[in-house]
């Protein structure tokens, strides 16, 4: 049986049923959402190493029918989204008890998961747009879920900027449709490469590429499109912050850029516009790395520091992807492009693990101490040892200390950049890796170490339902570093090969 549609159907169904049952069954959200995310996570993990498949909705063959595609890249994202989704949901069970309107929360949560899974498996551009909007709108609402002034303002900013991006994406989808006459991504890719000889000579396609890049970059929070993130991510409830930073910016932003630019437009050697697009990606990622890192150093709000850190780290992810694209476009060795992409995807996975851990931990800290102000904290490891230990592990991993996972992914990205001849870029990446270390040392110093003071005095360790997800994520942070061979061969390398071989994707979808 083909399970791909279930990745969309289960969370969508749950999102519909939760408020319905919620009318007379108070626990509907908790029970249904836990069950469905558990099933999704198990499905995602069991699809590791599965061959790439295409599902034709209603038996209609593409390009006419709607295709759902699960290849190496999609599986990577499905694992990240659904595993992190499940852990965040388990965490929510306890954490969200202080909020009211819980069925709405769980319904929106499932809607967000449905949107992300939809984006990842969608085989055509319009469905990609629709699912992207579903996930975005759900996340606008979730950011404002606390309905305090701050949260509403953050939600509104996110809504306006996100809508601008969505409009650009829709416009780009329309342009591609107008030029190629098809919405199916594989079909459009074939049209572009055969009929137009690449996107280069057609100004309309170039405009579409520019609009796509802007739209997805905004969803991914690359500088200069990042400004919504430092407001939105801290304002959301902690599990939602973890989802937003951990997987939403990746599936709506990075994944979409990968899919559209590597598969639909394609990076062909010797095509000027491909080189320029790749260069723009590298510039934006370098800007993100620098600005995100430096701004994080200056923050005293725990969650805001983490949010800026996300801007910087997503820059590393996109740097790997961008260097890979540049090597492909300039006709460099494919193995080098593969190395860069592998580094980017590895960092994507690592960031999903440690950033969701850090946001969940920040939620635990906020609930235990009642504040997010790092100036009022200190000595947390005396009061909340498990939270402190897992936070330490995540901080070391994201700061790039061996042997934790983040070190390896940054190492690959930097060495790929050096080998591709991007010396200045790689030096900036190394220097900013040091800055990352600085602000995580700041976090550890101010929050975890030192004498117990301020708001930490009366803090208690959070209940097991909240710290067990933290421990699992901490195990990921260590395990991804030490057990690379298992992880690499089964998950990352299929994803890399999927990105490198655009022709395979066309063959997979169109047969």
């Amino acid at each position, binding site marked *: 049986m083909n399970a791909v549609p279930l990745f969309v159907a289960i969370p969508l169904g749950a999102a519909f049923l939760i408020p319905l049952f919620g009318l007379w069954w108070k626990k509907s959200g908790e029970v249904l959402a836990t069950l469905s995310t558990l099933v999704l996570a198990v499905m995602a993990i069991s699809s590791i190493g599965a061959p790439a498949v295409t599902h034709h909705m209603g038996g209609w063959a593409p390009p006419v029918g709607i295709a759902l595609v699960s290849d190496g890249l999609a599986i990577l994202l499905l694992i990240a989204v659904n595993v992190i989704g499940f852990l965040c949901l388990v965490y929510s069970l306890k954490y969200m008890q202080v909020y009211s309107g819980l069925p709405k929360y769980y319904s929106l949560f499932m809607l967000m998961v449905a949107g992300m899974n939809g984006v990842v498996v969608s085989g055509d551009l319009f469905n990609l747009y629709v699912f992207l909007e579903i996930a975005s709108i759900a996340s606008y609402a979730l950011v404002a879920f606390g309905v305090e002034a701050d949260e509403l303002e953050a939600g509104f900013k996110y809504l306006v*900027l996100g809508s601008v991006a969505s409009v650009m994406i829709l416009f780009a989808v329309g342009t591609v449709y107008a030029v190629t006459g098809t919405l199916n991504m594989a079909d459009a890719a074939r049209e572009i490469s055969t009929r137009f000889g690449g996107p280069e000579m057609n100004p309309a396609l170039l405009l579409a590429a520019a609009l796509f890049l802007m739209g997805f970059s905004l969803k991914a929070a690359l500088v200069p499109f990042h400004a919504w993130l430092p407001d939105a991510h801290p304002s959301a409830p902690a599990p939602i912050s973890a989802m937003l930073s951990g997987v939403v910016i990746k599936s709506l932003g990075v994944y979409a850029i990968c899919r559209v630019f590597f598969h639909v437009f394609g990076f062909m050697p010797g095509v000027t516009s491909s080189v320029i697009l790749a260069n723009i990606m590298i510039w934006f990622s370098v800007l993100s790395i620098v600005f995100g890192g430096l701004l994080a150093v*200056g923050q005293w709000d725990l969650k805001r520091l983490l949010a800026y850190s996300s801007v910087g780290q997503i820059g590393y992810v996109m740097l790997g992807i961008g260097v890979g694209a540049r090597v492909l476009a300039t006709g460099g060795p494919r193995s080098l492009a593969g190395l860069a992409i592998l580094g980017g995807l590895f960092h994507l996975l690592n960031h999903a693990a440690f950033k969701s851990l850090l946001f969940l931990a920040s939620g635990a800290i906020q609930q235990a101490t009642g504040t997010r102000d790092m100036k009022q904290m200190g000595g947390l490891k005396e009061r909340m040892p498990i939270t402190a230990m897992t936070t330490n592990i995540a901080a070391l991993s994201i700061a790039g200390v061996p042997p934790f996972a983040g070190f390896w992914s940054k190492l690959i990205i930097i060495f790929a950049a*050096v080998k591709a001849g991007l010396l200045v870029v790689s030096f900036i990446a190394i220097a900013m*890796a040091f800055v990352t270390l600085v602000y995580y040392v700041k976090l550890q110093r101010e929050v975890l170490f030192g004498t117990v003071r301020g708001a930490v005095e009366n803090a208690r360790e959070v209940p097991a339902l909240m710290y067990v997800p933290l421990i699992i994520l901490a195990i990921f942070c260590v395990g991804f570093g030490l057990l690379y061979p298992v992880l690499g061969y089964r998950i990352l390398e299929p994803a890399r090969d999927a990105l490198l071989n655009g022709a395979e994707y066309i063959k997979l979808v169109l047969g």
Partner: protein
Amino acid sequence: MSQILIPIVIPAIAGGLCLLVPRRVKYVREVISLAALAWAFVATLRLFGAWPISYLKDWVVFGDFAIQFDLLLNQFSSFIIVFVTLFGLAIGLYSTSWLSQKHDGRRYYALLLWTVAASCGAVLANNLLVLLIFWEALTAILFFYVSLGRKKDEAADGAAKSFVMLGLSDAAMFIAIALIWMKYRTLTMSELSIFAGSGLTVTMYLLMMVGAITKAGAMPFHTWIPAAAKGAPTPVMALLPASIDKLLGIYLLARLSLDIFSIGPGLSLVLMIIGAVTILGAVLMALIQHDLKVLLSYHAISQVGYMVLGVGTGIPIGIAGGIFHMLNHAIYKACLFLCAGSVEKQTGTTEISKLGGLARAMPITFAACAIAAFAISGIPPFNGYVSKWMVYTGLVELGARGFSAYWIFLIAALFGSALTLASFVKVLYSGFLGQRPSALARVKESSWAMTIPMIVLAALCIIFGVWAKFPIDRFINPVVHGAIGTSVRGSIDLGIGYWDPTVATGLIIVGIIFGLVVFTVGRTVKRRTGRIFIGGTVPPDNMDSMHVTGAGFYNTIRETKGLSGLFANAEQRVFDVYEIGGRMGNVVVQGLRALHDGVLSTYLAWSVIGLGAIVFVLLSALVRELASRQ
């Protein structure tokens, strides 16, 4: 399993086991740690002399990019790991008694074992990336280790500062390694032979050097050591900044300067200047300290200057002196910190003004401390003298080869040595001699687990001084001739013509006996003893107000014209790269924060400008492309 892996793998696994032992279970952790450390020590002894042994394995394979786990045991690395594991073992034994119930023993022993494992890995590494990985791991271990201190805020500050400064030096090394890989396509250290002549190669060398001297603690990257000393548990100071970090830092510096790179006179001069400035600057700071641990930590910086100076001469005997001094320093500085730890354990303080008269109560600690203090001050016949003498000889020989400014460095080195002695006169007096404050009336000597490591290290100070030929022939000669011999210019006669320590010791002993005879004869003259009589009253015995501390011995130097301003600035940390970097970084960060005004229309404008930039770049390229085709 290959023999060469034992010093890395066994302590690493034992460290993990220590974490698993529940907190309440006693003795098991200690037994595991000591057994693993002893095993590692014996293994390194058995490896000694068995060079070359190499071990090569693809460690992590990223597609077709492989990181090779490449180890090489040669004369140099073999010698270093023997002492790394020895210090690990000595401090492990010491800690069993030093640690109180209030310390978290699980983490303490785990970190101790991991330190030894990572240090052995870094020394054995024959691939720059493997070196970097162990080097950075050691930085992180130090961070957690320092933070275990009981004075939590000081410990956390020191830990954070150490992590940041060492992290910066690791980043510098990372850049250098990336450059080396780009240029030479290999990271195998034994295959690299780079002449540091062009701008690129000099940059590589300097960046790598920053990594080495930050670990060793030379100026201007030294400030993490006093910061760590304020809060860290004392045995941790003895283990890392005093001994293992010196071994590693100078090991890497020597490998870099003499083996991987060949450096010209310009870079040699840079090293010598760093060395001379470090000797003098740090010893001046040491003079005015009033906390025993911080005082010792400044000496740990000052002595690095001799090592850097020795390696920087490029003269075989100077290099041998630098490397020998590294070994000697590790021995006597570890001993001094252990003595400080012993005093701290028994009295509860390391504040010099609160100590005094402990010699009678803690004779073993006093003897060990005195021997190590004489050794660090370069008094014959102790080991510090021999290696300093070799460094001086190297400088003189450099002068004989036409380097006319050698005397500046010679004077700096000699003067530094004199000030070191002055500083330790203060330590010995105010800690162990004079009147004992009444608060310390019931102080006792520490237990055997703490005194044995001190005795062993103090004995080594004497043995390596009196029979200096043994360690030089056994450890230093193979290094200078074998491991790094290829680029050492000229042959080497290890100065036995200049200084024969064994004969000299005999003469010194004869001199001391003669002195004792004179002293005894003098005592036979009748003396009168009486009570102190002040202002018409006889003060009671052991009155604390009569206690003269040595804390302010050298305040005159602090108040000297010309120096007073420097001291004031140094205490305000004006010269601290950490502070300078922090301030400059803060300006940039605040500027960037000011841009984020929280106004939606600003953010919208950025997005639109970003989109405009993409479109402009893409379309203008297209236009150019079209124009060029027509």
